[in-house]
């Protein structure tokens, strides 16, 4: 079999693989952390240092 055909066959097979997934609540866990980080980042941005606003 030609290399290109073999490569295409391998690609097809690998694309058919079902990868392992993290737990069902993974996205909600990440998003909770994301919102926490957002609040923390906004707090730092809005903080006045020596009365100067860095926002």
């Amino acid at each position: 079999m030609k290399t290109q055909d073999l490569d295409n066959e391998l690609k097809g097979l690998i694309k058919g693989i079902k990868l392992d997934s993290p737990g069902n609540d993974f996205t909600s866990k990440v998003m909770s952390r994301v919102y926490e980080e957002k609040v923390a980042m906004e707090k730092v941005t809005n903080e006045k240092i020596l009365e100067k606003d860095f926002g």
Partner: protein
Amino acid sequence: MEQKNDSWYVERVLKGDTQYFSYFVEKYKDIVFSIAMKVLRNREDAEEMAQESFIKAFKSLHTFKGEAKFSTWLYRITYNNCISEVRKKKIKFVSADDVQISDEPEEMNLDGIPAENRAKYVKAALEKLPEDEYMLILLYYFDDKSVEEIGEITKMTESNVKVKLFRARKKLYAILNDMLKEEIYTIL
């Protein structure tokens, strides 16, 4: 109807619509988790590291210039996290360079395996590859990343990526052939 791609979502998140970040988590969580799982070999640690990769991406999203694809940038973060974790936990990172391969040409021969079992069979063989080769194969064949993009992710030169991909593919065929000889596929 407007086609929403990764750049559209990046823009929304940067404009303050944080909820749109969940699009990236949903889209890329399996591949990020699979890379982490392969390196850390433990579900709990892999979930934590995958989570950290997304958080890091969110925190530094303002530095994403859009010169590369979002996924390339995210996998670079994931790859760096893996390397740091491996160093911190002193895990042995099995590299392709540690494994001897023969010079004999290998070809994939899946004759005799029912078509519906082939993907499972290839997955089992893929999991036997060292971490770096697993990642190269996953990025190149599963995620359609180019040699150039894999170079950006791993900081390898393009010629090095090509050589490693060639070796990885050859080794995958050898593993598949060995598995076939042992008829492991019958228990899958």
